[in-house]
């Protein structure tokens, strides 16, 4: 078992494209670390550099205490699960899982033992004689995972392993992967573009964009305390609402103003927002920090608007409306009956308001 250290990692392609920029990460022993971000953010390139499939332009990667920059993939004691499974089409399931052990010259009985063991964990004992093309997507995924676990590697690498599965299966495999990780207790690095996968699987999550690491943290930390507007908007579904506002100081009280919207800056943020008085900043509110106003809500945290679209999901209702010139979504109690164009008064929870710098996007 091992930790993985990434120091000042850079990847520049021949064409000049700078895919990964100064990435620093410390992945602890037995940790499940998820790299998440939109396509082209450098997450897969980072993973492939850890695997040894991509050359490192500059920086260092350590597995355990050893610098592995110049080690070929086979000597890094890692196993990888590919997005399209990458099963050998001409080999049976058993042979697919055994191949890595055969290449490493394990004795036959040991190979047999490990393959059976892995097959049992994954519930694919009955499929061992089949060829990959006789398997369903979910079964292939299990075989790909099986091929990784028979090797008992120090680190597991997952490259968007669930993205080729349908929605139901994806949720099911997600749970299985989490259970598997808890059972095997192996360090894992998992790449995905799906923030729900990232949040549910990761002990910690790395959010990347344009080659830069945006934030590293536990899922709830990313959700509750995003360091910038990108992370705030990327994590969470439906996404955080943003409204561009101007800060004004009227005799010591700070107000955030936008077209038809006037909100008081909550006391816990006054100190930090004061420096931006007279400037434009963005206010960010998650859909669940908004609710239909009742008598107990303070007028300085409420505003009037009209319902645009209602999305009844059963366990909750998403109400779409506009405020301060921007579209917004509120997550409200499913018992409430709302109609399009109905006038409503919405209140926000002052404890859960975020402010972001207009230019840098950094949280204020």
């Amino acid at each position, binding site marked *: 078992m091992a930790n993985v250290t990434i120091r000042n990692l850079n990847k520049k392609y021949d064409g000049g494209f700078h895919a990964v920029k100064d990435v620093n990460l410390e992945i602890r022993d037995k940790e499940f670390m998820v790299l998440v971000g939109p396509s082209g953010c450098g997450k897969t390139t980072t993973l492939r550099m850890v695997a040894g499939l991509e050359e490192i332009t500059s920086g260092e990667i350590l597995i355990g205490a050893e610098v592995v920059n110049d080690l070929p993939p086979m000597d890094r004691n890692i*196993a990888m699960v*590919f997005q399209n499974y990458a099963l050998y089409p001409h080999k049976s399931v058993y042979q697919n899982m055994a*191949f890595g052990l055969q290449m490493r010259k394990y004795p036959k009985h040991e190979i047999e033992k490990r393959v059976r063991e892995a097959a049992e964990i994954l519930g694919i004992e009955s499929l061992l004689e089949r060829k990959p093309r006789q398997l369903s997507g979910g079964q292939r995924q299990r075989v790909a995972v099986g091929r990784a676990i028979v090797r008992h590697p120090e680190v597991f690498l997952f490259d968007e392993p669930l993205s080729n599965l349908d929605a139901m299966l994806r949720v099911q495999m997600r749970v299985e992967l989490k259970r598997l990780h808890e059972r095997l207790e192996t360090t894992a690095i998992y790449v995905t573009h799906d923030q729900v996968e990232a949040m549910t699987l990761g002990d910690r999550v790395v959010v990347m964009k344009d080659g830069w690491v945006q934030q590293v943290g536990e899922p709830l930390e990313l959700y509750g305390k995003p360091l910038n507007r990108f992370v705030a908007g990327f994590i969470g579904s439906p996404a955080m609402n943003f409204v561009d506002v101007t800060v004004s100081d009227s005799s010591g009280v700070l107000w955030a103003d936008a077209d038809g919207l006037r909100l008081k800056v909550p006391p816990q943020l006054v100190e930090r927002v004061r420096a931006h008085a007279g400037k434009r900043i963005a206010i960010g509110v998650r859909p669940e920090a908004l609710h239909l106003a009742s008598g107990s809500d303070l007028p300085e945290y409420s505003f009037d608007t009209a319902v645009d679209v209602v999305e009844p999901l059963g366990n909750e209702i998403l109400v779409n409306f506009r405020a301060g010139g921007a579209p917004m979504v509120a997550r409200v109690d499913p018992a409430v009956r709302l109609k399009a164009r109905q006038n409503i008064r919405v209140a926000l929870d002052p404890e859960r308001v975020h402010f972001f710098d207009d230019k840098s996007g950094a949280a204020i």
Partner: protein
Amino acid sequence: MGAGSAAGAALPAEHVRVSRLTRLLESEKLLASVLLVPGLAILLIFIAYPFVMALWYSLTSIRVGDPGQFVGLANFTKAWNDTIFQTAFKNTVFYTFWATIFKLALGMWLALLLNRTFRFKRIIRASMLLPFIVPTVLSAFAWRWMFDPTFSVMNWVLYHSGVITDRLPFLSDGDWAMWCAVLVNTWRGMPFFAITLLAGLQTISPDLHEAAALDGANAWNRFWHVTWPLLLPVTLVVVVFSVIQTFSDFQLIYVLTGGGPANSTHLIATYAYQVGVASGLLGEGAALSLFMFPVLFAVVWIQLRFMKRMEGA
């Protein structure tokens, strides 16, 4: 639809006939037959008819200017006991066997090289096809000059660089000449192998190689356990195609040695031509060329069986 049918009735008779024909062709069975006729006609006239005629000729004593008469299997027995034919048969097997082995090995090597990324990839890939594009007669002539007893450029180079003291008998010795033919055939046919295998290589997902590399397979193991089995169907098709072409090859030997020296480099095709056309013994020539048929038939049959098994697996 009252207005529509009224308008249809008012149309001129010609238009009605056209749409009736169109309606007839709507029937898939009829359309299929109509479309098949030209192809079938070509097959019948240019393949089936000559083949049947060859079968018939081989059973008669026909020669140029003499329709001859039915002689049964006499032509075949004669060929069987003909020492030149026996040599030609052995030569054909030798020529096909070695040329195919070399073409496959070198073509595979070239395909693997060309499958990498390098500068001027497109131009090099395209220019590699040149030996295949040049008409065989022309390139065979060029090679004949290079092997010429007196003017051989190879002898000249080897002699003047001190590697040899006596000129090499490239085409003047039967054994040497056969190997020269194998060389030229390999040179000419290798690009076809390389390009076809390259096309096959490009259908193999790079992920499989990466997975194998992570599984601990070195370059040779990656080739043997991933590339080779996945390329096997393509390989099989090219090999069979090449065996058929090489086994029935004519031009190359005809230009390079003409079957000589002393009939030692004849292939079945060149010998059949010499007997049937050059000497005018049409019946005997037909019998000689028909000896190719069972061999080629067996090759195709084995290939088809193998392909079916792989599809079933």
